[in-house]
């Protein structure tokens, strides 16, 4: 009975962890990637490309922030 009760929760923890973990690492990696590309483009004298990459980096910073904010919200809503 215990196994039956827990199976659904265990599966939920597993897939949510996987999605959240991948989201956190991928989003921050994209921030790093586009920040670096922006810096390279600026050094190469291409202001428009630098701006575009910087915009993408900011977009992923915002998405990363949303994921973190959701995590903090989970902590706060426990009480």
């Amino acid at each position, binding site marked *: 009975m*215990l196994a039956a009760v*827990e199976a659904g*929760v*265990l599966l*939920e*923890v*597993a897939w*949510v*962890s*996987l999605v*959240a*973990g*991948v*989201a*956190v*690492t*991928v989003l*921050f*990696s*994209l*921030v*790093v*990637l586009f*920040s*670096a590309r922006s*810096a390279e483009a600026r050094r190469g004298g291409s202001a428009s490309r630098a701006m575009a990459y910087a915009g993408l980096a900011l977009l992923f910073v915002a998405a990363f922030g949303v994921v*973190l904010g959701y*995590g*903090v919200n*989970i*902590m*706060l809503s*426990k*009480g």
Partner: protein
Amino acid sequence: MDNDVVLWIVVATALAFDFTNGFHDTANAVATSISTRAMAPRVAVTLAAVLNFVGAFLSLEVAATIANGIVEAELVTPAIVFAGLIGAISWNLLTWYVGLPSSSSHALIGGVVGAAFAAEGADAVLGDGIVEKVAIPALMAPVLAFVVAGLGILLIYRIIGRLRPSTVSRSFRLGQIVTGSLFSLSHGTNDAQKTMGIMFLALVANGNLSSGDDIPVWVVVSAATAIALGTYVGGWRIIKTMGSRIIKMDPAQGFAAQGAGAAVILSASHAGFPLSTTHVISGAIMGAGAAKRVSAVRWGVAGNIVAAWVLTLPAAAAVGALTFGVVHVFGDGATGPVVVSAALLLALGAGMARRVGSGQTLTAEG
């Protein structure tokens, strides 16, 4: 009068456990950041201490006390709680001394189970509760964190593969500050509650409060302060094991381990299935190392850590049962807890004197 003395001994012991919980678990949040030089060691432990203190105020879920569903609640007495706390403190100190990360929650559960078993026999222990709250989480936490961190680091390397190493390292060190902070905050919201719950139960059992009352502010503040002070002191032996003895980490691996760890902890909290932060971050570190190269993980060290996890419950239970036996010899009054507390303080004092005598420091860094 006797009851009041027992109450205050239980409260003081609970705070002592909270302190050991803090310094034992400092490594969970800061080991990876220190080892990849994302933060200076003292800055890392100070930040972790502050966030643990803040976290303790964010959630006051006292109803979910640590032993709930694991032992028959109506059979629990202050003497059982006291003996359980001594079992947990002893295991925390032993595993700190040998530098092994282990779950403080499982140590506390083990201590209380052992003391309840010694006091009331097998009927006092709820086997299903142990499977649900100890065995399944202990199996699931490290495996899940291992997989998530492993997948995370593979994706990171794929995305940032051609960037300059110095840029990558600098950026992921920044990311580690964020994920490490999230971990510390999460730890504060979980672990300080255990001590608050125990102090609250002791106050209710002694007739100072009724079960429907709010938790007194002094209970919240003292528990938050004890775990923050313990975190600030820092269990450096465990930090060394987690930060550099399991794998040699680069900042991207540190970020993957902390990010995956935080994701697993919070996902489990969201589903109402709390996991040990120690098991999660240890599994995540191993996963981040193994995904890069299986031989990068020192499997001997990992094996010792897993052995400590397996031994946590029975070892803390044995000390809890033994402590209850000693307390029981002196009857139901305050004499037993006073004698055991005095003996432990003398033993700790002797240990410190020996360290001073051999020229070592009195901090947990040794």
